[in-house]
């Protein structure tokens, strides 16, 4: 039982094509609205990229409506985002400066694109010294449109809608490990993860406290400078001395270990579940977000399939017994889709559990997929247009 993958549950085909299309129409219109600017001003490659993404995102939403499943269709989008974002980002860097490394001259001129992962580290210095400890620019510039104000605005506005679901519908890094986790047929190290899960899921909180306090003490974005695995596939400080060489080694080691090898072995998102301090920080938003996953105890048979399927170990036996997920649940829908007894359900806080769960799912998905289309979709469109641009004969 423990080694079963989450695709064992029978498909929950419960909607006709016509009704599914009707439910998909608002999302198709939203996608068209989001990419209208791309059609108005960009070139042919951008038009094709936008068109591909409109069809892709609308098609996946249709399948969510048609099958009643969430996880597998969301995963297709998320893995595509995870692999195509670095591709598009690196392509842009190579075209602009010929290397993935960021020289110190660009840091002092404020040309480092802002990444939301550093947000928790900024809070204390910003609050007490009115200082942002990041080598970017507060307002967008011609050479750095991804300014701190814009990116924090994007993150905060989307967090109001998604809560912790940011980690499964918006983060452009998590899809890489979700992709590697999807590769093997059977999970290894399952006993280890189950036995030490309660300890492992505390690690992101410990790292969060560490990076926030140390960043405030030394006025450096410690996570960015030392601990981010995704520096290995985006951009990193140019190696100019022993310290920056060690930093580069740490980035590569963390990426290989936490994003490639361990997800492959465990079929879990190990970086997200056992390391990411931003994910821990984002978990706090689950307290105010209205949507959650609950368990109907009258139907649950304690098979623990949901616990096994959870990519971030956001379920424990105790939490299932209480009919709840843990705070770090990112609402990916894996547990709901895998449950053979329909005991795991989408839920709107304040309403009775397991009463109209599909309504709660729809209300959540419209908001979440709208954000995914707007943010991840635009990233995907950019990467697709880059690929088209590079294709021979195009």
């Amino acid at each position, binding site marked *: 039982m423990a080694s079963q993958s989450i695709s064992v549950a029978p498909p929950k085909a419960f909607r006709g094509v016509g009704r599914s299309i009707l439910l998909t129409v608002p999302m198709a219109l939203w996608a068209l609205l*989001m990419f209208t600017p791309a059609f108005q001003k960009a070139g042919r490659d951008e038009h094709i990229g936008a068109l591909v993404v409109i069809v892709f995102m609308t098609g996946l939403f249709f399948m969510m409506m048609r099958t009643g499943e969430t996880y597998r269709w969301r995963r297709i989008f998320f893995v595509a985002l995870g692999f195509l974002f670095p591709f598009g980002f690196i392509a842009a860097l190579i075209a602009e*400066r010929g290397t993935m490394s960021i*020289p*110190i*001259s*660009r*840091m*002092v*001129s*404020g*040309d480092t694109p802002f990444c939301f992962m550093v947000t928790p580290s900024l809070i204390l*210095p*910003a609050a007490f*010294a*009115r*200082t*942002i*400890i*990041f*080598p*970017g*620019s*507060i*307002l967008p510039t011609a*050479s750095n449109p991804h300014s*701190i*104000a*814009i990116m*924090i*605005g*994007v993150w*905060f*506005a*989307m967090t*109001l*809608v998604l809560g912790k679901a940011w980690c499964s519908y918006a983060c452009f890094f998590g899809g890489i490990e979700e992709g590697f986790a999807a590769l093997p047929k059977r999970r290894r190290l399952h006993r280890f993860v189950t036995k030490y899960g309660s300890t492992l899921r505390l690690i992101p909180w410990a790292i969060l406290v560490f990076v926030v306090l140390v960043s405030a*003490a*030394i*006025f*450096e974005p410690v996570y960015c400078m030392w601990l981010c695995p995704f520096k290995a596939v985006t951009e990193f400080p*140019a190696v*100019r*001395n022993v310290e920056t060489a060690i930093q580069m080694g740490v980035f590569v080691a963390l990426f290989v270990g936490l994003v490639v090898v361990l997800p492959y072995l465990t079929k879990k998102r190990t970086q997200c579940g056992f390391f990411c301090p931003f994910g821990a920080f984002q978990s706090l938003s689950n307290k105010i977000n*209205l*949507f959650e996953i609950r368990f109907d105890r009258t139907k649950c048979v304690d098979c623990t399939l949901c616990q096994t399927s959870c990519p971030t170990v956001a379920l424990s036996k105790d939490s299932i017994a209480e009919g709840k997920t843990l705070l770090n649940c990112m609402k990916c829908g894996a547990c709901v889709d895998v449950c053979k007894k329909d005991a795991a359900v989408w839920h*709107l*806080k*304040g*309403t*009775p559990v397991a009463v109209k769960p599909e309504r*709660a799912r729809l*209300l959540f998905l*419209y*908001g979440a997929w*709208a*954000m995914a289309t*707007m943010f991840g979709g635009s990233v995907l469109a950019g990467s697709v247009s880059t690929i088209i641009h590079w294709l021979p004969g195009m």
Partner: protein
Amino acid sequence: MRTRFLSILAYTGAGFTLLIAVCVPFVLIMGFSNVVAHAGLHIDATYSGGTIARTIQRSGYRIEVYQQVRPRMFERTEPFVQIVFEPADALPARVNDEIDLDGDGRADVRVSFTKPADANAKMHGDVTALNGGYVSLSNASGESFSRMVVRTGNKIVVRVPMK
């Protein structure tokens, strides 16, 4: 009765969340960005170089001398002063300037470098300390945030470490 009231509240909240979702790309992102932009925050001086203290005009170009940047208690950066030569395009092929950094009327450092022909070419320069308060740099490039001679856009940024 209470259950019904809570359900009405919950669905109202869910509807409000959808409304927020619709507003995100049109209103909220720029709204929150403006809040951050106008919050009176500034980029840490280790990265930005701090604020300009004085401007020295030369023929065809100017030298901006920044205020001294002193590290906070646990900050790892050395204290430094940033000097910016701009516009880089107007600089002579070889720059050799004596600069008064603290405004006391006496030159504190001599900065010399060759203007790179290519804006993206790696630079090397020398800083000679003319008094004991500053550290000389030989063949400096982009070693660290407190020791550098680099080109950024149309500027040459020099950072001189202090003792």
